[in-house]
C-alpha cells in the first residue's frame, strides 16, 4: 500500500482520467493526446514485452488507442479506472497478436523473467509519470512476494501470453496445478494491490 500523499496522487490521476474520458466522448482530440502521453509508454513497453517485435508492439498500441477513440463508451467508470480498462485492452490485443503470430516458443524464454527484453533494440525508455512510478514499485514488490511457482505460472500467462494448457505442458505439471497456482497468485496480488488504483 502507498501512504497518504501518494494515495492522493494516484486518485487524482484516476479523476483526471475520468475527465479526459468525458472529453473523449465528445470527440476531443486534445484529450486523446493527453491519454496517449499518459499511457503510450507503459502500453508500448507491455506490448513489446509480449510480442518481442517493435512492429507488432506498435500495431498493438495503435489498435488499442484507435479502439478507445472509436468507442470510448466501452469504458464503464463504474467498473474500474480508465487505466485498468485501457491496459487490459492492450494486454488482450497483445496476447491475441502473440497467438496469431505463433512464435511463442522463443518469446516465452524471454517472458520467464522480468528483466528488460534485449533481443531487439527497443525505443528509448521513458520516465514514468510520478503516480505510475509509485504504482510500479508496488506491483514489483507484490510480484516478488509470490512463491516462485506462483510467479512462474503468472508470468508465463501474462507476459508470455500462454494458455493454462500450454503452461501445464511446458512445465510438465497437471493442468489443475496450474489453475491452483494461478488462483493463489491472483488472490495474493488482489490483497496486496487493493486500492488505490
Amino acid at each position, binding site marked *: 500500500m502507498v501512504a497518504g500523499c501518494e494515495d492522493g496522487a494516484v486518485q487524482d490521476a*484516476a*479523476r483526471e482520467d*475520468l475527465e479526459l474520458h*468525458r472529453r473523449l*466522448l*465528445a*470527440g476531443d*482530440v486534445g484529450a486523446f493526446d493527453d491519454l*496517449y502521453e499518459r499511457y*503510450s*509508454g*507503459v502500453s*508500448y*513497453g*507491455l506490448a513489446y514485452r509480449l510480442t518481442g517485435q*517493435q512492429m507488432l508492439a*506498435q500495431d498493438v*498500441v*495503435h489498435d488499442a*488507442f*484507435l479502439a478507445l*477513440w*472509436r468507442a470510448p*463508451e466501452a469504458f464503464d467508470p*463504474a*467498473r*474500474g479506472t480508465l487505466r*485498468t480498462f*485501457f*491496459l*487490459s485492452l*492492450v*494486454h488482450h490485443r497483445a496476447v491475441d497478436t502473440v497467438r496469431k503470430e505463433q512464435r511463442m516458443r522463443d518469446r516465452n524464454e524471454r517472458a520467464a523473467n*522480468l528483466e528488460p527484453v534485449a533481443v531487439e533494440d527497443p*525505443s*528509448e*525508455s*521513458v*520516465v*514514468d509519470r510520478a503516480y*505510475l512510478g509509485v504504482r*510500479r514499485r508496488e*506491483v*514489483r514488490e507484490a510480484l516478488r512476494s509470490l512463491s516462485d511457482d506462483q510467479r512462474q505460472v*503468472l508470468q508465463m*500467462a*501474462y*507476459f508470455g501470453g*500462454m*494458455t*493454462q*494448457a500450454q503452461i501445464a505442458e511446458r512445465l510438465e505439471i497437471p493442468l489443475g496445478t496450474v489453475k491452483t497456482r*494461478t*488462483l493463489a497468485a*491472483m*488472490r495474493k*496480488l*488482489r490483497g496486496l*494491490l487493493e486500492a488505490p*488504483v
Partner: protein
Amino acid sequence: MTDHEKIDGLLAGYVLRSLTGEDASEADRLLTDHVPDCADCRETLTDFQAVSAELALGVDPVAPPDTLLPRLHRELEPRERRPRGLATLAVAASVAAVIGLTGTFLQGQRIDSRQSRVDALARMFRFAQENDARMVSVGPATQVAATGTDEFFLFGENVPAPPPGTVYAVWVESGGTVRYVGWFYPDPDGWVVRRYSIGGGPYERLFVTIEAAEGVPLVPGEVAWERTA
C-alpha cells in the same frame, strides 16, 4: 472445492486470457448466467481485472516510435469529418420524430459532430420498432423497454452532470432483490443514450443513484430518480 472456488479460478484464468476449451466455454457461460447476478463474483471479477491491468506495470515503459501518434492522428480525422449520410439523417429524423426531440438535435452541424450519439439513437429506434417498445420517464431521462427482451435503453437531454468523481448507476429490483445493471454519464451537451442488457427475468422497479466512479457499487446509495409508471 466449492463452486465459488472453481468460479474464482475460472475468473482468474479469464482475465489473464489463458483459458481454452471447456474452461473457456464454462467461463463464458458463467459470465452470462451467473456473474451478473452474483455480487461476490462481480467484485472478484472487477478486482482480478484490476490486478491483471496493474501487472502491465511489471515491465519498464518504453517510448513508442515518434511516428505512431501522427499515424493515429491521420486515422482520427474521419470521425470528426465523417460526411453526413442521407440514410443516417433519415433514421435520425425518424428517431427525433418518434421520441419527440426538437431543437438542437436536428441542427446539422451538431449531428456531424455527434455522430456516435446519432448512431446510438438509431440503434435505440430500431430496438423500439422491432420490439414494440414503451417509454417511461426516469427523472430527466426516458427508459425505452419492451416485454420479453433482456435489453432496454435510457436516453435523455439536458441531464445534469453528477458531482465530480461520480457517475449515475442504474439498478433494477425484483422480489426484494436489487441488481446493478450499469452506469451512465451525460456528454458535455447533457445527452445520454445508452443500452443496458440485463438477465434474471422481469423486474418491478428501476431507479438511478449517484455512485463513486470507482468499482462496481454493491449496494445502492440514495435514489436520484425512479421510474414512474
